[in-house]
């Protein structure tokens, strides 16, 4: 072994030009592989931090009636099926040791009605219990204007991104109730138009589903303007509203539920206490109920106390405990939910998030492809250079074979040369890559592009390398080394003593 490495090392020094060419390729390849792996790891970590921990958890429960798994960024107007078995789901989730937190949410599209615009706009609503939401996602956004909503009552939190969009669409600039116009937060166009700027602290929204368009148009008071800590341009599409108002907006309360909200003396007055309020709006001449398409929402049994937690939702976001097997947890959860006949299924976050998860996967795949392509180019160049080197040294190799060197010795010599070059130049490339990965976040490189934000894994380009990431790069380098040495080795061991003599 010592002899092999001695000869290999001296051959490298003897053929400095070729060695340098291979070395530069290996250095560049290892550097780019390291940074590439760092970007992939950073992206994965960013996604975990920002999407899983900051927006929707690891797993999402949705109704079995929901056809597509994508419930977050689905096509406009495509409604999300309701879940009305949350009470059972809650018990099941509470009994699963791998579940860390869970949060039921309403999620659907709402039509925005404005006095200032004839054309309605649209907003994605996330109906939540604000207190529970804060427990699940304690620091995913900051309230930059107004305040976090107090418990009870209607409330709407508009992300800065959505506010800018609403301004473009409505010409209305939303500020929180009791808040004033903050010039620094104004969009450029709004600032230019400040004299004629229409400012509002409320917005009327009408829930939309593909089954029925509820006639419940709710005026939401804007309680705050929020900015997500990361991926604001993606998460910023979603306005947070209190779950009760959300249900009301989406028509998720049955008539009986509505009746339950009428004070008792008024019911007496109206003599409606036991009446079916739906019948008031029924009548064949007016509306034929579309029982097939309308969400099958069960009315609460008479006399049963209804709480926000027991009502209708569209999804449940679930965070898992650290260290649990994701696939196992998903499988167990689905089994438990099916056995309990909850009518819901558990879906991985990347499927439930639709384009976000899809794009994350595409970007990750593209990066992987890039690194693989880099491998191939490096391998081809190294193979070519080493093969030429083998052929140029036919006489020397043939002589070695003539005096008794086995094929394995010749192969080892070539592998040794490539291994030394890989270890030195590739190792330097990895070290330089690690240094670059450490230094890049210090520059706080940012982007306004949604997709690049996904690539960045957050607001800043933050590649990340763990020990396993470095080990992966070293392993990839090893693979490149072995693959690159295989063909030249084959050529070299194919050289016979006779070839050496013939060349002489």
């Amino acid at each position, binding site marked *: 072994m010592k002899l092999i490495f001695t*000869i290999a090392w*001296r*051959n490298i020094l003897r053929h400095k030009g070729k060695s340098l060419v291979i070395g530069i390729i290996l250095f560049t390849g290892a550097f780019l592989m390291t940074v590439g792996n760092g970007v992939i790891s950073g992206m994965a970590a960013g996604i975990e931090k920002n999407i899983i921990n900051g927006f929707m958890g690891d797993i999402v429960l949705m109704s079995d009636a929901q056809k597509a798994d994508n419930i977050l960024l689905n096509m406009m107007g495509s409604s999300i099926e309701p879940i009305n078995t949350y009470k059972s789901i809650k018990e099941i989730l509470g009994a699963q040791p791998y579940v860390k937190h869970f949060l039921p949410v309403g999620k659907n599209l709402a039509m925005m009605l404005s006095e200032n615009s004839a054309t309605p706009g649209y907003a994605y609503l996330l109906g939540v219990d604000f207190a529970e939401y804060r427990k699940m996602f304690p620091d995913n956004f900051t309230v930059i204007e107004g305040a976090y909503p107090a418990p009870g009552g209607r409330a709407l939190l508009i992300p800065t991104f959505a506010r800018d969009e609403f301004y473009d669409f409505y010409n209305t600039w939303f500020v929180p109730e009791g808040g004033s116009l903050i010039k620094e937060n104004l969009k450029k166009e709004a600032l230019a138009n400040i004299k004629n700027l229409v400012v509002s602290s409320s917005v009327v929204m009408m829930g939309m589903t593909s089954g029925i368009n509820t006639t419940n148009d709710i005026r939401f008071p804007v309680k705050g303007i929020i900015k997500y800590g990361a991926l604001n341009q993606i998460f910023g599409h979603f306005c947070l509203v209190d779950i009760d108002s959300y249900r009301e907006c989406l028509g998720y309360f049955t008539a009986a539920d509505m009746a339950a909200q009428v004070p008792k003396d008024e019911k007496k007055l109206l003599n409606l206490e036991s009446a079916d309020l739906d019948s008031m709006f029924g009548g064949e001449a007016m509306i034929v109920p579309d029982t097939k398409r309308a969400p099958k929402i069960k009315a609460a049994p008479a006399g049963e106390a209804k709480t926000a937690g027991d009502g209708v939702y569209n999804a449940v976001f679930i965070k898992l405990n650290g260290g649990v097997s994701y696939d196992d947890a998903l499988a167990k959860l689905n089994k438990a939910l099916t056995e309990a006949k909850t009518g819901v299924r558990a879906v991985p976050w990347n499927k439930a998030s639709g384009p976000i998860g899809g794009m994350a996967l595409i970007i990750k795949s593209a990066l992987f492809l890039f690194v693989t392509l880099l491998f191939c180019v490096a391998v081809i160049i190294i193979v070519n250079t080493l093969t030429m080197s083998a052929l140029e040294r036919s006489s020397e190799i043939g*002589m070695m074979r003539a*005096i*008794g*060197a086995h094929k394995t010795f010749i192969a080892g010599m070539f592998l040794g040369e490539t291994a030394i070059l890989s270890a030195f130049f590739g190792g330097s490339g990895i070290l330089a890559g690690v240094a670059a990965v450490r230094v890049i976040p210090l520059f706080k490189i940012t982007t306004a592009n949604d997709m690049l934000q996904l690539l960045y894994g957050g607001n800043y380009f933050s590649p990340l390398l763990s020990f396993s990431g470095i080990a992966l790069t070293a392993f990839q380098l090893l693979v490149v080394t072995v693959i690159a040495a295989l063909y030249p080795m084959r050529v070299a061991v194919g050289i016979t003593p*006779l070839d050496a*003599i013939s060349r002489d």
Partner: protein
Amino acid sequence: MNIIEIKELKKDYLLGTTIVPALRGVDLSVAEGDFMSIIGPSGSGKTTLLNVIGCIDLATSGSVIVGGREITALNDRQITEIRLNKIGFIFQTFNLIPVLDVMENIEFPLLLMKKPASEARKRAEKLVEEVGLKELTAHRPAELSGGQRQRVAIARALVTNPDIVLADEPTANLDSVTGASILELMRRMNEIEKTTFIFSTHDSNVLKYARRIVKIKDGLLEKEPAAV
């Protein structure tokens, strides 16, 4: 006792679609400890004969027994082992390993045999002294003259104590004085190490060093002239 027994050895080369016979039925016996020269004009088949004896080339037909072993039926690994353990080579163009110094070049076959480094060094030191290169042990081949390189090649060929040393025109690239000294050295080593030497040449001036001369022409051995 014969160290080499060759019977009806034929070797053909294929040039395109043409078969060119290089050896056309050679019978040869070489005694142990002999110092033999194969002479003949260029293209007569002497190099081919040496290559077949040295397990560098394969016979087309016939029998070649080296050190009591039929070599025509061996696989690559077995043939390599014979080259390593039984045969020493001296090439016309010296063929030293350019990245190793004199001492390392001489040690090289022993290290291939996986001999301990100290043992290899000891044996190499003995031979480097015998070939008169004691002062040049740290020099690389490029820093040596042709004669010095061939001395290194002789030491390397002998370092494993082979049964046979084959030398293909060992003086062809050397001036006459150096060539003579190399042949003198080979003969001396033959006497010291008791190793069988077979060398090819087409230079009649070197024949006086051989104890036995075998003449080859058109792939066939001619009647042996009287040894000097």
